[in-house]
């Protein structure tokens, strides 16, 4: 696997989890929701920009990572997708 695929793989896994955390934070904390809204006029735009920003920023920072397993990505996808679905099944 090439260096970039490894770096961005870790960044991708982390960014997906940040997406889930942002969702839970904004749905449970109104102050945070309004802070997100005030950033760009809409909470969804702010969340998207933060998540994509985290992805590229982490990829820049993870210069020393040497290994990346597909199972890490699978776990991150499962956690983030499952988390979103479960959250809205319970609170939607």
């Amino acid at each position, binding site marked *: *696997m*090439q260096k*970039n*695929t490894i770096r*961005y*793989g870790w960044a*991708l896994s982390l*960014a*997906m989890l940040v*997406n889930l955390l942002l*969702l839970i934070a904004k749905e449970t904390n109104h102050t945070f929701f309004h802070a997100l809204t005030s950033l760009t*006029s*809409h909470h*969804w*735009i702010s*969340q*998207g920009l933060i*998540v*994509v920003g985290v*992805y590229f920023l982490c990829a820049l920072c993870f210069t020393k990572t040497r290994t990346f397993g*597909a199972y890490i*990505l*699978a776990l991150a*996808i499962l956690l*983030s*997708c499952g988390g*979103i*679905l479960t959250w*809205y*099944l319970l609170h*939607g």
Partner: protein
Amino acid sequence: MHTLILLLHPLLGFIALLCAFWAMIVLWFDPRAAILSKLFWLTTLSLLGVWIVAGYWYVHFYGVDKTMILKGPWPWAHSFFMETKEHLFFIALLLGLYLPLLAREDLQAKAPRNIAFVTLAGIVTLLLYAEGAGAIVAQGAKLAYIAHCK
């Protein structure tokens, strides 16, 4: 202009879905095919297009529909389907941004059929298919407006 934006959203989404699905099939049967790189890039660009077009629609026009849906007979069309769809999209977008990196990999270097990459393209396809829940949101809005007119 509004109609164009409204139509571009599912059209770009469909192109992204089609390319991701095509890439998954090509990855399985011929991981060294030259078309893979183009398919990965087309998926990514379509997803970025969807983000901009759908985001513009969602932010500027969806508010009215949202209010109507929540008052209508299918409030869950927004509270479950729309909310889930708009947050799952970020995962599809991130995976889409990762796909072009795979184009640089020698996909046949370690395994003749790299299951991990096939699965990744498959997950993008599935997530984009799930975005089709927009039809349920549209139906929720339609029923709400019909109920409002009665």
